């Protein structure tokens, strides 16, 4: 269950984040974790590491070999630790929580904007400015187009959803009317 994996991943992510902050290597660790997460999510690797016949040493060397020189000593240590605790499968969650912690400490926020039509740059920058004012963080905006919205935009920032789309309003009207 996703919730349980997150709970398991949290102490690892916090430890990595703490170490990264101490050694001022936040971006480096970000790369390392996303690389490791991609590797363990690969079907062939996942198959090999979940195979009970594979020995611990083999798992470590498998991953280290794939990473090659992209991993420094601390990265290798993390892999060894995760293998020893049989927690390789939570690497994607560790990466996720790490990114969250990193964004928070840097005051960044990933915002996803879905609009019915492509926005002009002026619109985008004014939206970003408004969001920055409201949420009090640096905004990193990614945009997407969904014709089904008919008009307006939906803004997703973490848990917060600001629905200003025509589709959303129509749905609300339908609920009001009890259709």
């Amino acid at each position: 269950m996703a919730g349980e994996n997150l709970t398991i991943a949290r102490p690892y992510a916090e430890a990595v984040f703490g170490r990264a902050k101490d050694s001022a290597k936040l971006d480096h660790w970000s790369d390392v974790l996303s690389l490791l997460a991609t590797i363990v999510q690969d079907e062939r690797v996942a198959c090999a590491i979940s195979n009970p016949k594979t020995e611990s040493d083999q798992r470590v060397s498998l991953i280290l070999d794939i990473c090659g020189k992209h991993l420094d000593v601390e990265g290798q240590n993390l892999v060894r630790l995760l293998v020893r605790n049989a927690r390789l499968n939570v690497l994607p969650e560790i990466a996720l929580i790490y990114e969250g912690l990193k964004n928070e400490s840097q005051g960044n926020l990933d915002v996803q904007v879905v609009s019915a039509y492509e926005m002009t740059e002026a619109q985008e920058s004014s939206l970003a400015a408004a969001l920055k004012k409201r949420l009090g963080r640096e905004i990193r905006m990614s945009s997407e187009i969904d014709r089904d919205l008919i008009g307006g935009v939906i803004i997703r920032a973490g848990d917060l959803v600001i629905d200003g789309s025509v589709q959303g309003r129509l749905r609300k009207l339908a609920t009001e009317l009890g259709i």
Partner: protein
Amino acid sequence: MQLNSSEISDLIKSQIEKYEPETEARTEGTIVSLTDGIARIHGLADAMSYEMLEFPGNTFGLALNLERDSVGAVVLGPYTHLSEGDAVKCTGRVLEVPVGEGLLGRVVDSLGQPIDGKGAIEASGSKPIEEIAPGVIARKSVDQPVQTGLKAIDAMVPVGRGQRELIIGDRQTGKSAIAIDAIINQKDTGVKCIYVAIGQKASTIAQVVRKLEEHGALDHTIIVAASAADSAALQFIAPYAGATMGEYFRDRGEDALIIYDDLTKQAWAYRQVSLLLRRPPGREAYPGDVFYLHSRLLERASRISAEHVEKITNGEVKGKTGSLTAFPIIETQGGDVSAFIPTNVISITDGQIFLEADLFNAGIRPAINAGLSVSRVGGAAQTKIIKKLGGGTRLVLAQYRELAAFAQFASDLDETTRKQLERGERVTELMKQAQYSPLSVAEMAVSLFAANEGYLDDVDVSQIVAFESSLHSYMKSSQQALSEKINVEANYNDETVQSLHDAIKDFKANHTW
């Protein structure tokens, strides 16, 4: 539901008039798992405990478990159209139900939605289902009676307005029957009634509604129905919804009576929800807070002072105390009152009416066990005349039962014992009462008076019931003034005593039964 065309356009018109398209900003999460009506939701970091959550398809849920990475919620109602990955929104509101006079005479579900096909409910407003019970200062002691119209209860275990009196017994011992009779007897008293049916068969609920309608008691009654087919979540919140509807009347300086039929099934429903939410099981697999489940509910039944009513209503209602009387019902298994839920509720309530299957089968109905049934506060609220006349009844019955057990072995008995046995037999017989036939104070008084003064001693035991009903019709036809006087004043004095003596003597001399 039938709606005519004007109603529909009116509805649309009013909706269009007040509809404001506004941009909504809400916290959103996604369902990560959905099992047996329990949704685990990722996200929703600012969900509140007991907050209503909005699922797709106009479905609502209740956030019960707030965990680090997920929220555990129960879906209220059907959940088959939901699936993993669906978006769930916070509503920022705790669960509320409509309250007000408009609910009287209606059958609603746990969320206050009408299910009787009589159209929309004109509610005075809505209130959260979980309210904190009035504090110490706001309360007033119980000193007015709730007349159930049942001789055995009003004489032996009187109930006051604002009291919590448990009705406990095995299945098929007449628990609900007592509750229904109590509702019927509130017809002209101004006491509003709420009947909360939890986990019952829908056919049984329909029957109760029909019976209340037949006896003209539906107009002052709200039925909150969470039948066995409804989800466990709806069954477990039904009593709270009912209590909120009752509190509306209490807080407006009126009197209300609420019946929870029954809390055993509510505890079962809560146990189901708790176990599915993976809360640790305790005794009999109930969760740790099952005592609080019932105690916080029953604490809401109370009598509040006139000052408090004035404060709540902002001075609108002055000089009137409000009360909410509760009759929780508990079903025992094989007469075992020492099981977990029965002991809990016995300890919370202000007394219990204990019904026994053996008595019921022996034809003593209502099957009240006089020895084990008590009312801890009702005595202060009892009408004077019934208190005076009914005071000895318990004692007579208790002594009778003791002697009857001994007398089975004795061949010849002395005069006093024989007399006591005969008196006991007659009082037992007198305490019998048919369903749906509540008695007035005067009728009860004359029956008890006849028994106390020995007027029944020369009546054959098998004729007691007939004697009583003839006596009542005699009182109704020939002694109207006396009946009226007792009903209104309910005083016990020499004058009343003399009139009662004369009336019964006249009846015995000139009438048959």
